C-alpha cells in the first residue's frame, strides 16, 4: 500500500513492514509516520520487539526523534545521523536476533565509526533468519559490495533458543564512503554443501541423527557434503532447550544458498523428530537451489537495497523468483529513494533447448537492473 505524503512526511498504515520502513527512513533521512498499528487488535499498539527495534536504532544514531502516541498505535520517526560504534543491545525474545541483525547489516557500511555491536537474545527463531544464515549467506553478499574485507565479522558467542534465548552475537562491520556497483548475472553451480547442527540442552545424539538424515538427502546430488555438529554446554547453550540445523550450499561463483530448520519450542506439546528435521532442511535447501539466482531468497531485499544505494552506475543481478517481502521492499525503495528497478523475467536460451528434450523447466529468474542513487556515507568523518 503506497504511502500518502503530507509535505515531505511519508505516512504509512499498519504494523507490517515496520522494520523496512524504519530502515529506509534512517538511510534516506526522511521522517515517517506510521499510523493504525494494530488498531483493531485486542492488543493494540507496538509490540515489545518493535519498541526494542526503535531503541536499537536510537543507539546507532545521533539526533533521532521518536514520538509515540498515547495508545502506541502511531509512531512518528525522524531519523538522525548514523553513528555506529560500540553498541550493546538486549533484543526482545519475541523475535530472533536476525530481526535486528539484518538492520544493522544494512546500516553498517554507512555509519560514522565502524560498527561493533553485541546483540543478546534468541539466536534461532522461527520467524527470522538465524545468525548462522546471516553469517553464511548475507556477509558474502555485503562483501561483494564493499570488496575489501577489513573487519567484517559475525561471531556467535552463545546460542540461545526460544522462548528464553540467552544467546549472544558480536557483529563488526567496516564503514565505506560508497558502495560499488555490482554486476552479478552468473551464479554458477553448487559445488559443496556445508552445515551446522546445534543442540542446546538436549542429548548430543539428536545432532548426529539430524546430520545423518540431512546428509542422506544431500548425497543424492553431490558427494561433497560436510555437516558440523555444535553441541553447546553450560552457559553457551542459552536458557532454553532446542536443536536445529542450517545447511549452506556454495556455488563456484561464491553464491551461498542457505536453508534452516529448527525444533519446535519446548513445552509446546509437539515433538520434532531429528530425522524429520534433517530431511526437511535438506528439502528446503534443494528448493532454494532450484529457485537459484545470485542470492538466497531471504536476502533479495538486501541485494536490492545495496544496489539502489550504489554510485550513479548501472547494477544488474539475476535472482530467483521475488519473494513477497522483496516486492514490498522494492515498492518502499521507490517511495523513499525514487529508485525503480527494471525487472525482466530471464530466459536462458540454451536451457530452453535442453528443457525441450528432458522436460525440465528451471524456476523463473528475474533480472534486476537499476541505476544507483549515488548514495554517499555522509556521516563518516574526513580528516
Amino acid at each position: 500500500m503506497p504511502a500518502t505524503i503530507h509535505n515531505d512526511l511519508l505516512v504509512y498504515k499498519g504494523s507490517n513492514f515496520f522494520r523496512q520502513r524504519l530502515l529506509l527512513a534512517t538511510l534516506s533521512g526522511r521522517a515517517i509516520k506510521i499510523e493504525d498499528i494494530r488498531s483493531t487488535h485486542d492488543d493494540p499498539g507496538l509490540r515489545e520487539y518493535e519498541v526494542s527495534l526503535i531503541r536499537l536504532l536510537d543507539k546507532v544514531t545521533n539526533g533521532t526523534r521518536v514520538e509515540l502516541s498515547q495508545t502506541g498505535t502511531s509512531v512518528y520517526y525522524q531519523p538522525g545521523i548514523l553513528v555506529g560504534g560500540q553498541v550493546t543491545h538486549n533484543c526482545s525474545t519475541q523475535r530472533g536476533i536476525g530481526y535486528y541483525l539484518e538492520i544493522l547489516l544494512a546500516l553498517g557500511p554507512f555509519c560514522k565509526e565502524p560498527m561493533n555491536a553485541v546483540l543478546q537474545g534468541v539466536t534461532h527463531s522461527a520467524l527470522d533468519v538465524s545468525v548462522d544464515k546471516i553469517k553464511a549467506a548475507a556477509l558474502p553478499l555485503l562483501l561483494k559490495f564493499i570488496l575489501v574485507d577489513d573487519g567484517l565479522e559475525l561471531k556467535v558467542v552463545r546460542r540461545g533458543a526460544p522462548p528464553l534465548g540467552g544467546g549472544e552475537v558480536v557483529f563488526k562491520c567496516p564503514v565505506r564512503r560508497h558502495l560499488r556497483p555490482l554486476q552479478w548475472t552468473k551464479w554458477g553451480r553448487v559445488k559443496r554443501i556445508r552445515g551446522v547442527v546445534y543442540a542446546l540442552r538436549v542429548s548430543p545424539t539428536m545432532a548426529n541423527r539430524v546430520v545423518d538424515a540431512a546428509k542422506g538427502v544431500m548425497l543424492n546430488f553431490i558427494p561433497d557434503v560436510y555437516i558440523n555438529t555444535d553441541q553447546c554446554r553450560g552457559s553457551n547453550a542459552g536458557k532454553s532447550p532446542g536443536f536445529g540445523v542450517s545447511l549452506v550450499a556454495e556455488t563456484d561463483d561464491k553464491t551461498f544458498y542457505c536453508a534452516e530448520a529448527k525444533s519446535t519450542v519446548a513445552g509446546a506439546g509437539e515433538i520434532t523428530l531429528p530425522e524429520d528435521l534433517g530431511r526437511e532442511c535438506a528439502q528446503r535447501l534443494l528448493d532454494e537451489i532450484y529457485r537459484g539466482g545470485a542470492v538466497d531468497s531471504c536476502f533479495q531485499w538486501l541485494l536490492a537495497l545495496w544496489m539502489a544505494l550504489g554510485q550513479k552506475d548501472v547494477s544488474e543481478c539475476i535472482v530467483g523468483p521475488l519473494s513477497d517481502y522483496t516486492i514490498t521492499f522494492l515498492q518502499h525503495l521507490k517511495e523513499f529513494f525514487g529508485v525503480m528497478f527494471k525487472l525482466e523475467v530471464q530466459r536462458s536460451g540454451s536451457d530452453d533447448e535442453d528443457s525441450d528434450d528432458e522436460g525440465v523447466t528451471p524456476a523463473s529468474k528475474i533480472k534486476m537492473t537499476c541505476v544507483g542513487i549515488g548514495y554517499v556515507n555522509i556521516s563518516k568523518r574526513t580528516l
Partner: protein
Amino acid sequence: MADESAFDKKKSHRAKQAGRKAEKKKNKNKVDQSNLSARQRNPKAFAIQSAVRAERQFRRREDVISKKQHIPQVDKTPLEPPPIVVAIVGPPRVGKTTLINNLIRSFIKTNVTSTNGPITIVTSKKRRITLIECNNDVNSMIDIAKCADLVLLLCDASFGFEMEIFEFLNICQVHGMPKIMGVLTHLDMIKNAKTLKTTKKTLKHRFWTEVYSGAKLFYLSGIVHGEYLRNEIKNLSRFISVMKFRPLSWRMTHAYVLADRLEDITSQDLIRKDPKVNRDVVLYGYVRGVPLMKDSSVHIAGVGDMKISELSYLPDPCPLPSNEKKRHLMERERQIYAPFSGVGGIVYDKDAVYIELQGSHSHKKEDEETNEKKTLLKNVVETKETVDEQMQESGFKLFSGGAVIYPDMIKDDEYLQQNKKADSDDSDSGAESDSDSDNDSGIDQSEKDDKKNKVPWDNNSDGDESDAEDDDEKQGSSDEETIPVDNDISADEGDTDTDDEIQTEEDFGSKWKEKLGEKATEAYLERQKTSKNIMKLVYGEFEIGNKTKDKKDEESDDEEDEELGGLFKKVTDTQKKKHKEKERLDLEECTFFYALEKPNLRDWTSEANKQFLINNFVTGKRSADEDASELLKLDDASDGDEEVYGDFEDLETGEKHVAEETPQETGGKRKAEPTKSEILDKKMKLKAKFDSEYDNPDDHRIKGDHSYYENLKAEALKQSELNKSVFENLDNGLRIEVEGFRPGLYVRMLFKNMNSEFVTNFDPSYPILIGALNMAEQNIGFVSCKVKKHRWYKKILKTNDPLIISLGWRRFQTLPIYSKIEDDLKCRYLKYTPEHVTCNMHFYGPMTPQNTGFLALQSVSNNTNEIKQVGFRIAATGSVNEINKSTQIVKKLKLVGTPLKIYKKTAFIKDMFTTTLEVAKFEGARIKTVSGIRGQIKKALNKPEGAFRATFEDKILMSDIIFCRTWFKVDVTKFYAPVVNMLLPVGAKNAWQGMKTKGQLKREKNIKSDANTDSMYTEVNRAPKVFKPLVIPKNLQKGLPYRFKPKEKTLKLPGKNNKDRFQNRIAVIKNPEEQKVSSVMKMLKTNYEKKKEVQKEATAQRLEKHKKQMELEEWRKLKRQKELKKKICRHLSKMGNKKKPQM
C-alpha cells in the same frame, strides 16, 4: 598546443631527396667515424654499466609514468550531451555583450538584438553551446561558477586585472574549476607597441599563476565598427568548439538545470484577486550532470529548496542535426534558442506549440500594464483561455463524480479506456505516457485486474471474517494465487487459469479449511512458473502517483452510498481490495520466501523432481557455452573453416587420418552443432577480447607492468559501456522511470507555491540555477569543516558573526563558531580565526557530503564603498569535514576558590561553587593552587553553602588561590537563512542584507558599550615606602670588623635629634686633688679585684680537690657494699641450694 595544430594544416615541407642540395646535406649529416669514442660507435655494448644507474633510470621512468596516471573514472557523458555552458565573465565595461554578439554572429550568421539570459546555439554537428553573460554581482558570479563548463574571462588590458577577476577565479577553485580561457580586450587603447608587448606578457604570466601555466589567453586587439576583428572571433569560436572537459566531482554526483525559460501558469483569476498569491511556475532547461530523478527535491539558487511537483520532458528546442553524413552544418540547422532574449521562433509546451511573432507583446509586458481598459480587454481574452482550462478540469471532475453516481457507466468507461490504452501503449511516446490521463488509465487497469482476480474469493472472505487467524493464512495463499493471474492477464493462459481457479473454488466452498496445505502448495508451484509482467506486479500501484488520496475519498463515498441503499451491505470491489490490504496491514514481518504459509515442498529426492535440480550442481550437465566438450567442438569447427575435417597425418605415430563424413554422423543428433554465424560470433568475441587486451589507444605511452592500473581502467570502461548500453532499447517512458531524466533532455519543471516575487521581480540577466539535492541533502544539521581566512581579506573573522556561505548549490547566511582541534581531538573554541593557518568551523546548515568546498563572504551586497573598504570580498574558503546532529565544542573555564581553613594536608575551600549540588557534580575533580600544589575535591561542607573539603599533596597556605580547570560546552546557534536575492526587486537584486553583525548594529544605532571599569586608566597614587630599621644581632656584631660595627648605640628620644642630645650634656673636669683620690681609688679597686680573683681561684681548686675526695670515698663505699651484697647473695644461694634437695 595540440588544439592549434588541429586546424593549422598547411602543406608540410618536403626535403630534397636527390640532387646537389641533397648530397650536401647528406655529407653534412654524415658522422665522422674516426674521432668517435668506442661508446659512441657501439652504444649497445655499453648499455648497462652500472646497476645503480640502471635502477635509478628505471625508477625515474616509473615515476614519470605514474605521474601520468589518473584514477580512472566512469565516463558518464550521455550520447547526446546537453549544450556546453559557456559563461562570459568580467568586470563591467570590458566588452562582454559585444563578445557574445560577435560569437553568435560567427556561429550562426545572424544578429541578435538583445542578449538576455542563456542563449543556446548549435555550433557544429556534435556540439551545442549555451552562452550566458555574468553580471557584476557576486551572487551571479557564484551561481555561474557552479554551472559553467567553460569560462571566458574578459579583462580590460589597458587597466589590468581587477579584483572581480581574482574573486571569480577563487570562486571557481572552490566549486570545481571549469575550463577557463582569458580574453584580453581593449588592446587598442595601448598605443605604444613596446608597452603593449610588456603588458601582454605580464598579464599572461599573472593569469598563468592563477589558472595554470600555459593557460590559453586570447587577445582581441580592438574594435572596428563596434565589432571585434573577424578572424580573432573565428579563432576563439574554433577554440570553443574543440574544447575538451574533465568531469568535476560535484557535478558528476548532482543533476542541475540552467533554466532558459520561465512561465507563470497561475490562473489569472487568483492573481487578480491577490497579486501576492503564491504562483505556479514552470521552468525549462536542459538536464546536466547526472540523471535527474522525478521526485527529487531541488534547490533554486537565490530562492530556496523546492519540490518539483511535475517533471516531464519536451522535444529539444535546439536539436543537433540528424546523423546524415556530411561535412558542414546546413544553414537551417544552425539554430538559436533564447526565450529570454526573444529569439528562437518556435516554443514548445507540454501540449502546444507557440510561434512567436515579431512585434507581438509578450506576457510579461501585459502584466505590467496598468491601463484599466487594456486589462479589461485582456481579461476577456484571457478568461476565454481559462474557461477552456476550467472546462477541462471540470470535465475531469464530472468524470470522477460520475463514478460516484453511476458506477456501471464508470466501469464501461474503464473498459474503454483500458482497451484504448492497450492499443496506444506501443505507439505512445514517452512524453505522453507521463501525462496525467495515461496515469489514470494505468490505475484503472491495475485496479481492474485486481477486481477480476478477486471475484472467486467473494464468499469466503465475507463469511469467515470472524476467524482471524485462519483468514490471515488464507489471505496469504490467495495473494499467492492472484499473482500469476495478474501477470498473464493478456495471455490466453490467464483465462484458463482463472477458470481452473473457479472450479477449485466450488470445491472449496464448504471445506476449504482442510485444503489449506494443498492450497499453499499449489500456490507455491504456481509461483515457480514464469511471471510475465513482473514490473507491473511490483510497481503497479505507483502509477497512481498523487491521485491516491482522491481515490480514497471516492471509495469512502462509495461505501456510504451503498450502505444507505439497503439493509445488506453490498460488497464492492474496492472494498474487497481494501479488505485485502487491511488483512496485510498488521501481519508479522518476515523475510522468508514462504513467509507465513508452510507449503508442502516438492519431494526433491524423487526421480522426476531430481531432474529439475541435477544440473544446478557441478556434477550435472553444463550448458553449451560452458561445457568443455562443446567448446572443443566449436573450436574444431572454427578451425575447420578452411579445411573441414580434412586429412592430416599424425607425425608422431605416422597414423593417417582421413576425413570422414562427420556432419552426417553427428549433425543430425546434436543440436549444439555450431552454425556459421555462431562461429563468426565467437570469433568476433575473441577478437574483441584480444583488442581490449592489447590495444591501448588512449595512452600507449604507458608501458610496463601496470596491470593494477590497467584493470581499474578496464573496469571503469566496462561500467561506462554498460551504463550506456543497458537502457538503450528501453521504451522512453520506462527508461525515464528507471534511469531518471538523463542529461541532455530538455525538461519542463512545475513548481507550485513559488513566491510571487520570483515572477514579478524576475530579471533574466540573473541565472536561474536549479540544482538537484541528493539523499539527505535537504536535511539540516551541524556541519563541521576546515576553513582558512583568505589571505587577501583584510579582517579576521569573529565567532558568531553572521557569515554568508556558498556551499553545494546553496548560498546561505549562518552563525559559525571557530574552533581548533586539540591533540585529543577535542574542539576548542576560538574567538577569532587564526591568521595564516586553517581552523575548524561549525555551523548550522544543510547537510552536504564531505570534502565539498565552500567559500564565505561577509556580505553579498554591492555597496561600492564597502567593496572599496574591504578590497577582496571572499573572506574564507574551506571544505566540509563532518556532519552531525550535535556539536562538541568546548571552551576553557577556570573556577577560582580560596581556602577557608587549613589542616595539615586538608583544606576547606570556599567561593568556588555556590551550592552543594555543584560541588557534588565536581567531586573527585583535580584542583591546583597557584603555587602548583595539586589536590582533589572531596566532599561538600554543609556550613558555608558551596564550600568543600579538599586534599592536597602538601600543606597549602591561606594566601593560596585554588583553581579548578574545566571545559564548558559552547552551543552553535541554530540559524540558517538562504540568500534570497532572486526575490528582491529588479534594481536591488544585489542588495541582499541578512542578519547584521553586532558591531554593525551598534555602529548604526550609535550605541557605545561601557568600558570595563577594571580596564580603565586611573591616577596612580604611590605612598612612600617606609622600611624597618636594620637590626644586626649581637653575635653578628661581635664578629664584625670594627668598621662595620654599628658605631653608636643611640638611645633615641622622641622628638630630639642627636645634636640636641649632646648639647644638654655637661662636661665634668676634675681638679688634681680629686684626680689623685680617684687614681688611688682605682688602684685600690684593682688590688681588691686581683685579690678576689686569686681567692676565687683557690676556692675553685679546693672545691675540686674536695670533690675528688668525696667521689673516691663514695666509690669505696660502693665497692664495699657490692662485696657485701655478693657475700650475702652467695650465702643466700647456698642456703637455697641446700634447701632444695630437701624439698
